[in-house]
């Protein structure tokens, strides 16, 4: 085969391979190319976040509006500090917005659900969500139930 045909097909092959890698990164790993869409950060402290992971969904009324950017632990208070990345510009979520950790279905992934408030002021970039409710742990619930049944 002529060298030129070989070169063209190798070029096409390398291009197709590179495109596949990009596809895997963007469509499968969900990495967003370029920060064209703006977002801001809210911080929430939970007493328990077990099951929540970085890149978990943040939803409001069942619609995904952002992702969990990072989860850190505050050793002194024994709390988890969760950074939420919310799409769009700040100035729409009210100051008394609540956050709870819920589970999708029975075996599903954990996500952060935001509960709308009624305050006039709104949360800005880097603000804390005060009203939080951590993940429900089945073992704790069962343990609670047993002590209550024993007491009565």
């Amino acid at each position, binding site marked *: 085969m002529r*060298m030129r045909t*070989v*070169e063209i*097909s*190798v070029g*096409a*092959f*390398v291009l*197709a*391979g*590179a495109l*596949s*890698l990009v*596809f*895997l*990164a963007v*469509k*499968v*790993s*969900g*990495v967003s190319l370029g920060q064209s869409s703006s977002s801001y950060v809210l911080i929430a402290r939970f007493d328990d976040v077990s099951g929540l*992971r970085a*890149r*978990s*969904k943040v939803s409001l009324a069942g619609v995904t509006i952002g992702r969990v950017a990072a989860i850190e632990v505050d050793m002194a208070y024994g709390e988890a500090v969760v950074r939420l990345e919310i799409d769009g510009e700040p100035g729409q979520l009210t100051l008394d917005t609540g956050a709870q950790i819920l589970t999708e*279905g*029975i*075996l*599903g*992934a954990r996500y952060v659900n935001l509960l709308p408030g009624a305050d006039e002021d709104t949360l800005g970039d880097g603000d804390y969500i005060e009203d939080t409710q951590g993940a429900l742990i089945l073992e704790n619930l069962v343990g609670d139930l047993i002590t209550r049944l024993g007491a009565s």
Partner: protein
Amino acid sequence: MDLLRTLGDRTLERLSGLGRASIMWGHAVWGLPTLRELPLVIRQIYNFGVLSIVIIILSGFSIGAVISLQFYTQLSRFGAEDAVGLGLALVLLRELGPVMTGLLFAGRAGSAVTAEIGLMKTTEQLSSMEMMGVDPLRRIVTPRLWAGVISMPLLAAMFNVVAIYGGLIVAVQWLGGDEGGYWSGMQENVEIWNDLGKGVVKTVIFALLVTWIAVFQGYDTDPTPEGIGLATTRTVVTSSVMILAVDFILTLSMYGEF
């Protein structure tokens, strides 16, 4: 006594084989191709990569479809059909993509390289190259090694993409799953370095392994027709076993601590 002697002979033979292979590998890897030798590498990428696309796409599609079918039927018993996409993506990126591509690569490209170099040796092309003052390692081995390392990760990426679409067709088009759940399950949980990156590292290691074995078996073959046949078989068998064994070690060291 005789048994002991054969055993010792065999061991020494294996050892010297490994030694020769390692020396050759060292020479070939250090001999980074210069710009003038680029056409040789391109020609080999054509042989390794472009000619392997059809088999990679066909097997990728069927493997994605089969895994998706199995996952879907089992997961739907728990109502977790949405996890099909995630399960398929993780299995492909971490294990099946690199391993299957490696096995197909060994069968399709590795055997061809061994036969080609074996025939060169049998027809004394290698010795005439040496007589002309051309280093056969640089001319024959280095381009093939680099071509293998370049083409296999690209082939594995194509394999994964086709397999994910094969899985999508079975799970969504055929079995009636939800397309949104298929994609979002992946995007939320697949991590770029931990899943995709480590998979690419695996394919590069497998590529080095397969091309090394293939080139060495060709280089070290008995210059007879049977010798070439034997060497070709040995290439496919050794690379397949090595890929599976090395994959286990790699998986253990990459994902072992959780």
